[in-house]
């Protein structure tokens, strides 16, 4: 009986990982967190720092809220979510400041704003948060990785096109269009990434079983 429970939990965890990273990646399917992608997804270094902070904040918030229980009103859960994520960002920001002086300036304002955006994902994931700390943890990790994949691809592309560098190292090509670092280019890059994602997803989906919104 207990073994069955563990197996079913593991199955659910695998499904959540698949959903968060690939099949229902909130950042490409629901356009969650567009602001950090557009405004801060300019260099790979920024993207990696943002991804690490996002994953940390998501885990702390999700696990924290999962301890609240089901009886508490949704609006109170949201308020707790907001405060928890801002609290989780305090050590994350201090750590970012210590290890990466160059990226801190760019991250300074977006980190706190980002937490609000990452919160939005809980709008649909409250269900998973209600299933206990383990499921909440797996769901948060999956969404953290999902965000990391998206922002790293967007940032890498924009860094190559805008500056001709990768992780601030000069490469023999790129650096063609400096405006690629501006927010409007972020919208375009994200649009093409989502279109590519839909195309690839379409190849693997059975006809009539699309995941379109």
């Amino acid at each position: 009986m207990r073994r069955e429970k563990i197996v079913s939990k593991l199955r659910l965890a695998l499904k959540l990982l698949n959903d968060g990273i690939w099949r229902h990646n909130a950042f490409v399917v629901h356009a969650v967190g567009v602001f950090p992608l557009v405004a801060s997804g300019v260099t790979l270094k920024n993207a990696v720092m943002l991804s690490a902070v996002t994953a940390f904040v998501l885990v702390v918030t999700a696990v924290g809220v999962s301890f609240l229980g089901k009886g508490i009103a949704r609006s109170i859960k949201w308020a707790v979510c907001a405060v928890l994520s801002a609290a989780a960002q305090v050590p994350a920001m201090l750590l970012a400041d210590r290890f990466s002086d160059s990226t801190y300036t760019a991250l300074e304002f977006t980190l706190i704003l980002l937490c609000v955006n990452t919160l939005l994902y809980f709008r649909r994931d409250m269900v998973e948060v209600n299933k206990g700390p383990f499921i909440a943890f797996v769901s948060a990790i999956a969404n953290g990785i999902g965000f990391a994949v998206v922002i790293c691809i967007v940032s890498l592309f924009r860094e190559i096109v805008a500056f001709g560098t990768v992780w601030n190292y000069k490469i023999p090509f790129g650096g063609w269009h400096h405006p690629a670092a501006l927010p409007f280019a972020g919208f375009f890059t994200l649009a093409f990434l989502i279109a590519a994602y839909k195309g690839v997803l379409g190849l693997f989906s059975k006809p009539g079983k699309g995941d379109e919104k």
Partner: protein
Amino acid sequence: MKMVIQALSSMLFVMFAENLVLSHGHGATELIFVAHRPKIALLDGAVLTAATTVCGIVYWFFERVVSRFEIIWPVHALLFMIVLAVLYLIFVGILRNVLTGIYIKVSRGLTVTLINSLVFSVPFIIAFEAHDFLDSVALGVGAGLSFIIAAVLLSAGQRALNNPDVPEVFKGLPVQLIYMGILSMVFYAFAVH
């Protein structure tokens, strides 16, 4: 008089010259969310404007109190997030109990409307741009109105975005983002020149 003109120019600045939504991407997720519900886009915008205005007013007083202490920026932001969470609960309470008609219409996306990066960007703008109380109120109102402008522009283009000639993979979110990118480019040019 000078203060009023200063406040008005600050408001116009965040609405047009540096439209917070289209030039910087603040509240872009909320904008896309609203685009799927065009019938209540203006009502959502009005609730958001109320939220950004109250946020601007509260932040002005919050700053007067907090600046007396030497607090590092992350903790400062955490304290304001606590204030924002309380404001959110008050807003939900007022809407649910007093403005029930509006609450029924906007309840589906109320959390996204009241807690998003646009609302939270108001304190940052006030910290750098506001000169006095009136200015911070104007920046709060302007932030909300910048969202309404973006929502109206996005709704206006919705019919063109549903064009059958749009390739299948670009239908929906991608074409919407491309349209937002074009609008963002327009506002960028507006700001530069």
